[in-house]
C-alpha cells in the first residue's frame, strides 16, 4: 500500500513535469526585447532615439564626457583651450594654459559605431516595424537621418571628407573585406549629403515646437550652419597663399562652389527666420539680463531651436559648481575653472560702435585713467558683455561679486605706485578698506579667476545649484535663432547683399542694446566680431576660425602676438592721500594672465585632424590628411 502511494506520487510528479515542459523551449524571454517588440513600440523607439541624441558630439558642452570612439564628446573643460578663456581651476589642469601647440590629433572623431547604430536602426524600422503607422515610421526614420546628417557634419568639420556610410556594412565571412573598405568622400560631397538629407526629411520630421527633438527648423538650422561652413571653406581656402587641397578633393572645396553654398545657407536661414515659430528673446527690458536669459532661461524662450536639456533632480551637471564666481560660490570647493579672457572682453564694442579696447591709460600713456567705481570702465559696452561675463562691479544671484586685485599706494619718495596684493581673498588693507576682493583676481590661488573675469553664460541663477548636492540643469544650446541671424548675415554679405546682411546684424545688435540700425556699413571683420561676442562659449570660435582659415594667423604661437596670448585685467584701489582726484579711485592694469604660460599655436596641419594610424592600417583606401 505504501509502495502504491509512492508510485502514484511519482506518476503525478512526472505528469506535472511533462506538462511544465510543454512550452519550455518556446517561451518569450523576460529580460530581452525582441526586434519586433522594439520596432513596433513607439516608446521603445523614442528611448532609443534618446540614446542617439545623447551621443551627439561637441567640442565643449556642459558635462565631462570624453569617449571619442563612440562620439560621446561633450567636455566643458575644453572651453579653456582657445582664446575665449583660460583655466583658473585646480592647478592639475594648468596644461590648458600651456598648450605649446595643438596636437595634430586634436578634435579627433571617428565615431562609425554611432553611424552604424543609426544605419542599423533605419534598416530595422523598415524590416520589423510592421505595425507602426506609415507616418510614425516615416517620422522616426527622418529623425534618425537628421542625427546621421548632423554627425557627418561633426565629422567633416574636423576630419575633412570621410567615408559616407549609409547602410550597414556586413562581413560575409569570405575572407575578403575589400567591399567594406570605403574610400573617403570629397569634402564637398559630405556637405552636399547633409544638404540633400535635410531637404529630403524636413517636411516629415514632425516634432513641431520641440526644442529637444529635431523638427523641420532644427534640420534647416543644421543646413544653415553646414552650408555656411562649406561656403567659407570654399572661399577662404582658395584665398590662402597656398590652398590646402588634396588631388581627390578629400579636403579642399573648389572656390567656384562658394557662391552656391552661401546661397543655400542664406535660403535655409531665411526659411527659419521668416517661416519658423521663433523670435529673438526680448522678455527682459534690461538688455544685459535679457541676453543672459536668452541662452539660459527655459520658460517662454522662443529663441532656442535645439538644445540638450537637463532636468533636476536627476538629469543634471556640474557646470555651475565648477565655474561659478569664487566669491558667490555655495559649496566649499569648486568654482572658477573656466574664466573669460580680457581678449574676449575687449572684443565687445562700445555702444557708439567704437573699438572695444578698454580705456585704462591716458592717451599719451603717462598715467592711469582713474575711475570712481570699479565698473565704470565697462560703462556703455555692448550689453552682451554683461550677459556673458561677470566683470568687476557686477552682481550674480543678487550678490555683489567683489573683484579687486589689491591697492596701489603712492610712494612719493620713488614717485611711483607701490602695488600691494593680498595673500588671501577678502582681506583688508591697513586703512581698513578692501585689499583683495572675495573673488580675487589672484595671481596664484587656484579656483580664483586669474584674468579678473568670470563666466555668467550657462551659470545657473537658481539657489544652491552650484552645490554638489543639488547641481544645475541649465541646458546646452545647439542652435538658436541668434546664430541663424548671423549665418544669414554672413551669407548675404558674402553674396554681395550688404543691405540684407545689415538688417540681420542690426537686429541682433539692437537686442544687445545698440540703437536702431546701429550699423550702416559692413565688413567681414565686423561680422566675425559679431559672431565672436554673440556666440562666445557656445562652441563656435574654433570652427569659425578654422573655416575662415584664420586660426593659424590668430593663434600663431608667438608670444609677441597679443591674439595668441590670454590677457588679464587687474583692478586696484588707489591710496594717494592729498590728491583728491586720485585717492580712493580705481585703476586697471592689463597683463598676460599670470597662470598663462604658452601662446596658442595652431599650425597648418591642424586645419584637418590626423586620421588615426589604426584606421589607416585597417583600410588602405583611406588616405592621410595633408601635413601629417
Amino acid at each position, binding site marked *: 500500500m505504501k509502495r502504491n502511494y509512492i508510485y502514484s506520487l511519482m506518476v503525478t510528479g512526472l505528469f506535472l513535469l511533462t506538462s511544465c515542459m510543454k512550452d519550455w523551449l518556446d517561451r518569450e524571454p523576460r529580460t530581452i526585447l525582441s526586434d519586433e517588440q522594439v520596432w513596433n513600440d513607439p516608446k521603445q523607439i523614442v528611448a532609443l532615439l534618446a540614446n542617439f541624441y545623447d551621443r551627439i558630439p561637441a567640442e565643449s558642452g556642459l558635462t565631462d564626457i570624453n569617449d571619442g570612439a563612440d562620439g560621446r564628446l561633450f567636455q566643458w573643460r575644453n572651453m579653456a583651450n582657445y582664446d575665449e578663456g583660460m583655466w583658473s581651476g585646480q592647478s592639475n589642469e594648468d596644461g590648458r594654459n600651456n598648450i605649446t601647440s595643438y596636437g595634430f590629433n586634436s578634435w579627433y572623431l571617428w565615431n562609425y559605431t554611432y553611424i552604424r547604430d543609426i544605419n542599423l536602426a533605419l534598416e530595422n524600422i523598415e524590416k520589423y516595424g510592421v505595425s507602426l503607422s506609415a507616418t510614425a515610421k516615416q517620422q522616426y526614420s527622418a529623425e534618425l537621418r537628421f542625427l546621421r546628417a548632423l554627425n557627418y557634419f561633426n565629422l567633416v568639420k574636423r576630419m575633412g571628407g570621410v567615408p559616407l556610410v549609409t547602410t550597414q556594412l556586413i562581413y560575409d565571412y569570405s575572407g575578403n573585406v575589400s567591399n567594406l573598405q570605403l574610400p573617403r568622400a570629397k569634402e564637398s560631397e559630405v556637405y552636399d549629403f547633409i544638404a540633400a538629407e535635410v531637404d529630403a526629411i524636413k517636411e516629415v520630421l514632425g516634432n513641431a515646437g520641440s526644442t529637444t527633438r529635431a523638427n523641420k527648423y532644427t534640420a534647416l538650422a543644421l543646413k544653415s550652419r553646414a552650408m555656411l561652413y562649406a561656403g567659407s571653406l570654399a572661399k577662404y581656402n582658395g584665398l590662402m597663399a597656398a*590652398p*590646402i587641397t588634396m588631388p581627390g578633393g578629400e579636403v579642399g572645396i573648389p572656390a567656384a562652389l562658394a557662391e552656391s553654398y552661401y546661397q543655400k545657407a542664406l535660403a535655409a536661414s531665411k526659411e527659419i527666420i521668416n517661416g519658423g515659430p521663433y523670435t529673438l528673446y526680448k522678455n527682459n527690458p534690461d538688455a544685459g539680463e535679457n541676453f543672459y536669459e536668452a541662452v539660459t532661461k527655459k520658460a517662454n524662450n522662443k529663441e532656442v531651436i535645439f538644445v540638450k536639456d537637463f532636468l533636476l533632480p536627476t538629469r543634471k551637471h556640474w557646470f555651475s559648481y565648477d565655474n561659478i564666481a569664487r566669491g558667490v560660490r555655495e559649496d566649499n570647493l569648486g568654482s572658477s575653472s573656466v574664466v573669460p579672457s580680457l581678449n574676449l572682453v575687449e572684443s565687445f564694442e562700445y555702444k557708439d560702435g567704437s573699438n572695444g579696447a578698454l580705456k585704462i591709460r591716458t592717451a599719451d600713456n603717462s598715467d592711469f585713467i582713474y575711475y570712481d567705481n570699479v565698473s565704470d570702465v565697462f560703462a556703455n559696452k555692448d550689453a552682451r558683455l554683461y550677459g556673458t561675463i561677470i566683470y568687476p562691479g557686477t552682481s550674480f544671484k543678487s550678490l555683489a561679486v567683489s573683484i579687486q586685485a589689491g591697492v596701489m599706494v603712492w610712494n612719493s619718495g620713488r614717485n611711483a605706485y607701490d602695488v600691494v596684493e593680498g595673500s588671501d581673498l577678502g582681506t583688508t588693507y591697513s586703512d581698513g578698506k578692501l585689499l583683495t576682493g572675495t573673488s580675487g583676481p589672484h595671481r596664484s590661488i587656484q579656483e580664483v579667476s586669474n584674468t579678473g573675469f568670470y563666466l555668467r553664460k550657462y551659470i545657473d541663477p537658481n539657489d544652491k545649484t552650484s552645490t554638489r548636492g543639488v547641481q544645475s540643469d541649465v541646458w546646452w544650446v545647439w542652435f538658436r535663432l541668434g546664430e541663424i541671424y548671423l549665418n544669414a548675415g554672413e551669407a548675404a554679405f558674402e553674396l554681395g547683399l550688404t543691405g540684407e546682411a545689415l538688417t540681420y546684424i542690426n537686429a541682433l545688435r539692437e537686442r544687445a542694446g545698440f540703437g536702431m540700425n546701429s550699423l550702416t556699413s559692413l565688413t567681414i571683420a565686423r561680422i566675425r566680431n559679431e559672431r565672436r561676442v554673440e556666440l562666445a562659449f557656445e562652441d563656435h570660435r574654433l570652427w569659425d576660425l578654422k573655416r575662415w582659415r584664420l586660426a593659424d594667423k590668430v593663434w600663431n*604661437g*608667438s608670444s*609677441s602676438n597679443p591674439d595668441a596670448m590670454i590677457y588679464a585685467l587687474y583692478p586696484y584701489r588707489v591710496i594717494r592721500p592729498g590728491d583728491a582726484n586720485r585717492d580712493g579711485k580705481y585703476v586697471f592694469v592689463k597683463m598676460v594672465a599670470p597662470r598663462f604660460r604658452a601662446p596658442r599655436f595652431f599650425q*597648418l596641419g591642424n586645419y584637418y585632424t590626423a586620421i588615426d594610424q589604426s584606421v589607416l592600417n585597417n583600410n588602405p583606401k583611406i588616405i*592621410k590628411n595633408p601635413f601629417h
Partner: protein
Amino acid sequence: MNRILSLHIPALLLLALVIGCKKDNYEKPSSTLSGKVVYEKDAIGLRSNGVQLELWQKGFELFTKIPVYVAQDGTFSASLFDGAYKLVRLPGNGPWVNNTDSIDVTVSGNTVIDVPVQPYFVVRNAAISKAGSTALTATFSIGKVSDGRALESVTLFVGKTSIVDAVNNLGSVAVNGADITDITVPVTINMNIPGSLTGQSFFYARVSIKTAGVAEQIYSQPVKIE
C-alpha cells in the same frame, strides 16, 4: 640577534628588489641613430622641436611610428635597438619639397646619417648686427632652390636665448613676399630692439623665410648680438 636581523632585513629586501627588477625586463635600446637634415651638405636651420621625422620598423605586430624631432640646428638623434628601419620625411611637415620616399636605415651601434631634403628657399649670407643702440639690421640673400611655391614672407626674430624662432621670440619684423620684387637682391630688415632686450648685454637674432602653404619656416643659424 634582533638587532642584526632588523639591520639586515632592509638590505635583503633591497637586494631582492634589485634582482627582481633585473630578472624579466627588456634591455633598453643601446644604439643611437643621429644625423642632420641637409641641403648641399649644409644643415638646415629650423624651429626648435617643430619638424618631425618618422621611423618605422617592419615585422612587429604593433605597427606604429617612432617620432624623431629635429633640433633647430637641423640635427636629430634617437635611441634605438639595432635593426632595419625606414625613415620617412613627413609630407608637408618641413620647409622643403615633399619627398615621401623612405630612407632605409640600418642601425648598428651608433649610426650617423644625413637626411637630404630639397628646400623651396634657403637663407644665404645672413648678417645681423646692431645699428646704433636701439636698432637691428639684418641683411641676407634668398636662394630659390625649388619652383612651385611662392615666397610668403621673410622675418627677423629676436630673443633672449639661442632658441629663437617663430614661436620662441620677444619680437619680430616681417616683410611680405609681395613687397620683395626681386628676390635675387639681398633683403634688408630693420627692427627697433624691443624694450625687453635693450637692457641685455647680449641677445640672439635669426632670420627666416616662409614659403606659402608650408607650416614651418627655414631659418639662418642664430646670431649672438652683443
